[in-house]
């Protein structure tokens, strides 16, 4: 109920559309309620002639004209009602879409780590549509049905109170039924939506992971996974249809009962001369008016049943507080000197063990800090804390002495350039992709950045050069090209602080060498924090932090660490010495052979 109320509240923001809707509805309904009366008069007029009355052509033509005028008003206002209803629904979902979009865009990484894109999309597409359905049905159809019920019942009771009561008896039956069915329908639709979500996840992963599927020959296994949800989706729809049918069937049968009762009782009244044939006719015409919106009751119930879970799912996101909040009195960080400090920083992803534990870093302006360590040792997490993609649990991170939580997110991130591990290209031209962080960049700046990132020569070979459109996620670029695109992006922003996350891992030695040289130029005058698996990219660091299980195991310059002979030395040795020799030194028992025999 709360959800429905909130949807209605959102719709009522569009006041003038709502006013227009109800004005048109009242006018149009009044006109349409005149028609049965006019039809009845026509029948009585003709009945009069049959019973020996005089034939007055002008009276008949008058009635016909009345019908025409009433229909004209009904039609035009019907048009207005439809227009206002649709535009009300569309305005509402227009608002919701914008709100949802902005929310999703601003929720922190902690949120996105847990959400499937498909799931967020399905909310934006299907759930938003369900809401629109409810706005239309709830704010337009439902009041229309209620008004018709009340007014028609009053008209019928005034015509003949017994007949009127027969017709009105219909109302309580319908509402009792609807409450019962709504409950079951809602359950059926929730199940349907869940199963549809699962189906689309299986499909999406199968398509995105097609190489793995082919490489392992597991097509049959995948079909099994898919089939499970596919058949559930089918069963869900059939079940929901059964409920709708049961409801509709009973409703219509009741209605036919009312008509039969009217025919029998009304017939007796006409024979007893208590009712004219025209009045009996009126009765039927009114009942028929009642019938039309009655057929819509099924739709109202379905749309309400869908709107509640849909609304819940949408509002859940819209209301979600972002774990990363800007302080109310946050200040703008102007161009930073680039002094980044971590003091006793701890961080944990929700409900897991700490991934960053009591880390201290002091990156003076222009210095290069390198993070080294095994996977999962917390390197990526540390760099994600600086732009506040996640908020730390304890300790403090400062830039030029300002706690980053006291700065506006925008100004903070403007000062930080990031080359991420997963490179994302947008459907736009290459130039637009490079200028993603700096919209008003000139073509010269873009070209310069591309040159630094060693991407310019490649772009020049393309037919449309910088104006080449990239397709979905830049799938027409290779991994190395996308990575250089990401570097160009960061270069263009010209940030005082630069974060390189594994940025040169998947390019060949030749390209890597080029990028390395380029990056050396870029780093000049910037504070840079590098994560790299390759020592060749970090050896020039002013300080190297060797991470192990979330903590700093060792720190120092390259030569200091080499001398110390600890974990860093070990990694260093592994990189330089021939593999053969290493393998001989580490005589670890290999249980794999045992496994192979077993299987």
């Amino acid at each position, binding site marked *: 109920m709360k959800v429905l109320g909130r949807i209605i509240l959102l719709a009522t923001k569009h006041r003038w559309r709502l006013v227009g809707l109800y004005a048109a509805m009242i006018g149009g309904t009044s006109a349409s309620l005149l028609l049965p009366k006019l039809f009845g008069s026509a029948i009585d007029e003709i009945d009069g002639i049959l019973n020996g009355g005089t034939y007055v052509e002008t009276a008949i033509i008058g009635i016909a004209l009345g019908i025409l005028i009433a229909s*004209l008003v009904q039609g035009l206002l019907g048009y207005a009602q439809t227009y206002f209803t649709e535009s009300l629904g569309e305005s509402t979902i*227009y608002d919701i879409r914008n709100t949802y979009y902005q929310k999703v865009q*601003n929720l922190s990484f902690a949120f*996105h780590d847990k959400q499937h894109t498909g799931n967020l999309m399905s909310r934006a597409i299907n759930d938003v549509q369900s809401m629109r359905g409810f706005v239309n049905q709830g704010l337009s159809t439902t009041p229309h049905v209620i008004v018709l019920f009340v007014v028609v019942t009053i008209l019928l009771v005034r015509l003949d109170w017994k007949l009127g009561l027969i017709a009105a008896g219909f109302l309580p039956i319908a509402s009792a039924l609807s409450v019962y069915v709504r409950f079951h329908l809602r359950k059926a639709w929730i199940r349907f939506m869940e199963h549809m979500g699962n189906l689309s996840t299986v499909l999406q992963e199968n398509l995105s992971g097609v190489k793995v599927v082919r490489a*392992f020959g597991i097509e049959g296994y995948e079909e099994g996974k898919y089939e499970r949800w596919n058949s559930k989706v089918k069963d869900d729809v059939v079940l929901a249809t059964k409920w709708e049918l049961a409801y509709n069937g009973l409703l219509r049968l009741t209605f036919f009962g009312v008509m039969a009762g009217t025919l029998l009782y009304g017939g007796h009244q006409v024979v007893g001369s208590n009712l004219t044939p025209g009045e009996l006719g009126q009765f039927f015409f009114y009942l028929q008016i009642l019938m039309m919106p009655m057929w819509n009751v099924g739709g109202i119930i379905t749309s309400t049943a869908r709107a509640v879970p849909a609304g819940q799912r949408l509002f859940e996101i819209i209301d979600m507080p972002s774990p990363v909040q800007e302080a109310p009195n946050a200040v703008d960080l102007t161009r930073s000197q680039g002094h980044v400090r971590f003091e006793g920083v701890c961080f944990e992803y929700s409900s897991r063990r700490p991934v960053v534990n009591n880390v201290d870093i002091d990156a003076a302006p222009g210095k290069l800090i390198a993070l080294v360590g095994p996977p999962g040792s917390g390197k990526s997490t540390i760099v994600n804390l600086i732009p506040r993609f996640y908020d730390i649990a304890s300790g403090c991170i400062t830039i030029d002495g300002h706690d980053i939580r006291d700065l506006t997110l925008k100004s903070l991130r403007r000062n930080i350039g990031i080359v991420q591990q997963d490179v994302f290209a947008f459907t736009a031209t290459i130039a637009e992709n490079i200028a993603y962080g700096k919209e008003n960049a000139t073509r010269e700046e873009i070209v310069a950045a591309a040159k630094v990132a060693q991407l310019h020569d490649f772009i020049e070979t393309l037919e449309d050069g910088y104006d080449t459109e990239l397709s979905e996620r830049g799938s027409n670029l290779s991994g190395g090209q996308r990575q250089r695109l990401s570097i160009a992006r960061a270069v263009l922003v010209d940030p005082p602080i630069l974060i390189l996350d594994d940025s040169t891992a998947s390019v060949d030695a030749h390209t890597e060498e080029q990028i390395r040289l380029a990056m050396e130029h870029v780093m000049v005058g910037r504070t840079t924090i590098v994560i790299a698996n390759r020592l060749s990219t970090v050896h020039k660091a002013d300080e190297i932090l060797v991470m192990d299980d979330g903590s700093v195991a060792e720190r120092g310059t390259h030569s200091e660490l080499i001398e110390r002979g600890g974990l860093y030395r070990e990694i260093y040795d592994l*990189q330089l010495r021939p593999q053969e020799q290493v393998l001989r030194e580490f005589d670890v028992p290999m249980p794999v052979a045992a496994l192979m025999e077993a299987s």
Partner: protein
Amino acid sequence: MTTAQVTAKAKRDKEELVDGVERYGKAFDSRIFGRFVHYVGPYKMLVVIGILGVVVFSLSQVALPWIIKVAIDDYIVPGNLPGLWWIVMLFIANAIVNRVAGVAMDLSMTKAGQGILYDLRAEMFSHLQKLSMSFFNKTEVGRLMSRVLGDVGQLQESLQVAVNFSGELVSLIGISIAMMFISVKLGLLAMSVLPVLAIVLVFWQRRAKKSFIRARQSISDVNGALNENISGVRVVQSMNRQDRNAVLFDEKNKNNFNAVVDVTKISAVLIPVVDILRAVSIGLVIVFGARMVIGDSLQVGALFALILYIQRFFDPLRNITMQYTQLQRSMASGSRIFDLLDTKSDVVDSPMAFDLPKLDGEIELRNVKFGYDPGVEIIKDVNLHIKPGETVAIVGPTGAGKTTLISLIGRFYDVQRGSGAIMVDGHDIRDVTRKSLARQMSMVLQEPFLFSGTVKENIILDHEEVTHEQIVVAATAVGAHDFIMKLEDGYDTELEERGSNLSVGQRQLISFTRAIIADPRILVLDEATANIDTNTEAQLQRALKTLLEGRTAIVIAHRLSTIRSADKIVVLQDGRVAEMGTHDELVDSDGLYAHLNKMNYAALESTRV
């Protein structure tokens, strides 16, 4: 990707878009319709019941006013009250028939329809399993998703429409006949406004079509923007693009709003048109009916029934026009669905294909030539012989064709007959079933891919016979066990989308474990260690040494240290084998390999000073 590929792909995308718009218009395409009929087969009985239901339902609807007419003219007006009871009974009986037929119609059509949609979804999915990588390179995942879910969903909508449509058609015919029975003259008079309606509809259709297309395009723009920004949210936030993106999104959103409101404005035109024409029709019947009454050729009940019929007559007409647009959409969807189903895979098992026997692991490439696009050869005449159990490293600059070469060995693409052959244990891989090849060859790819589900499910895939101990042994061997145990639920930890709660290196270690569990004769590693840190890599190298024993292995790596221990190093350059030999041989020969080797170490050497 090469320049040519990039341009070719952009061109294809554009063509497909134009194609889609042109195709959209058709509301009925006998070719597509004929194919749908084929899917009805298994549900024949249900459809027959459904059609019977439609006919009976519609006729009982038409009978309703007629029964009331008879009640008024033959029983109420003459005052025959006992007879009225019988006629009311008849009315109730008709109502029951109406309901039973209605339920039979809806339920059987829903069951048949859902069955067909289920079949279509399943067929599309299993068809997608058969298509080769060249198809997936050309086709975006989002587009395929919208084929399988969106377009099939459109058909679902049409299903209900089709049932209603046929029902309305039967009612329309029934009503026309009933009106003519009451009075030919009044019946014709009532229908005299139909030509006007027909003319209005023709003009309306033309105008409406355009706005429907615009609305559909605008909503796909909105969804496209949304999808991209959710997927790329990390870049958006790090580049501070939220405000600008919100403006861009609002533009698309607004555009969609306008397009949809425009559709409403146009489609709602039919409301006043139908209301007025109906009033004219009823007015004519009343005026002329009154005149006829003088000649005693019309009864009150008959006039009453006529008005009821006319009121019913126009609703089906209006609905049919509204449903027309839904049918258009379905036809477009149908044609896209069949296009997908008709896409031929260029890697198909030949009818004579046999399952590979257990392999020794000998691989031979004979004069292999290959290109993705005609005229652009990526692999130019490669000859290579790999003995069983040998480890071969493939090196070379970007674009040399390394990944393409191993994709051919894994039969992601087929080498065209006449462009050389790839033999495994002496069998041409085009003559064997793809599955039997895939089962004996494991690949660890550059970008690890994990599915939703637990770590364990991702390791075993379809090898359900594997015990937990075997999994632990395999994971320990590649150095994945320790971090897996640190996860919340160990091996039973649910992975977030594509394993985003793991680092790339960790994901890669899981793919390694997966490859071990598959127990292949041939192992292919495509830059598989690029994202793994040095420490883990050393451990992995040790594990691999044992793992590779007795298996044939092909390794692509940029890190020369990884490659050194290979039995043979193949240096690819521009689609050809430039050099081949052991590490020492190649270093001595002072060729491309020697150069790459020097470069990789130059950086570190310099620090020693």
